[in-house]
């Protein structure tokens, strides 16, 4: 609602097992961003927004670094291994 660039699907994981399996959902809430980044857990808002911004801008320290102090440790993990891998 704050940005036309953002769309959100809230997915009830147990009812859509194919999706949950595709994104290796073992704990909730799990957030997947653009099929490329993910993190687990309900983060405090500044941490969440930093993780989101970093996922969108790529990995680098973007211009958003100063917006949430101490949030570096919650950087979203890049999904490198390809979706649907069962051997992860």
């Amino acid at each position, binding site marked *: 609602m704050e940005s036309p660039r953002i769309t959100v699907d809230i997915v009830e994981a147990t009812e859509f097992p194919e999706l949950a399996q595709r994104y290796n959902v073992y704990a909730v809430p*799990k957030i997947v961003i653009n099929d490329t980044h993910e993190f687990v857990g309900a983060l405090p808002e500044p941490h969440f927004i930093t993780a989101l911004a970093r996922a969108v801008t790529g990995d680098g320290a973007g211009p958003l670094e100063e917006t949430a102090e101490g949030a570096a440790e919650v950087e979203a993990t890049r999904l490198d291994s390809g979706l649907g891998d069962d051997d992860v």
Partner: protein
Amino acid sequence: MPFLNAKDAEVIRRRFASDLESDVRLLLFLPATGGLTLPGEDWQIAEYTRQILNQVAELSDKIQVEEYGLLSHGDVAQRYKVRLVPAIVFLGREDYGVRYLGLPAGYEFVTLLETIIAVSRGRGEVSETTRSVLAALPADAHLQIFVTPT
């Protein structure tokens, strides 16, 4: 069967009365009708979802529920990029791109209520910092938030 007892319904009715601004349309996409159930489609979950939405809509005249079949209204489903059911598309003054896939029960019932209110107001409860970061996002972001009702 009512999901909400009279006391809870009254609490939600008052919350809606104080917090809703614009009308909200809840587009509910359901599995195929006519006895045809495609693999992966669960009619019972869809039916519960339908009942919950309609009971919630009864608590405010600003909330309307519209039902569509994923196949029988394929054009509508395509317009809102709905591919799985049951799916709820939340529309306020505009389409903010918020969807809920599955049954919004248990803890997720609160998610349903809060999403209706946020869409009606056209803004979320976020800080000014968050607002400015989001406004400056250089690229699109599609978030999938996996939840469970417990």
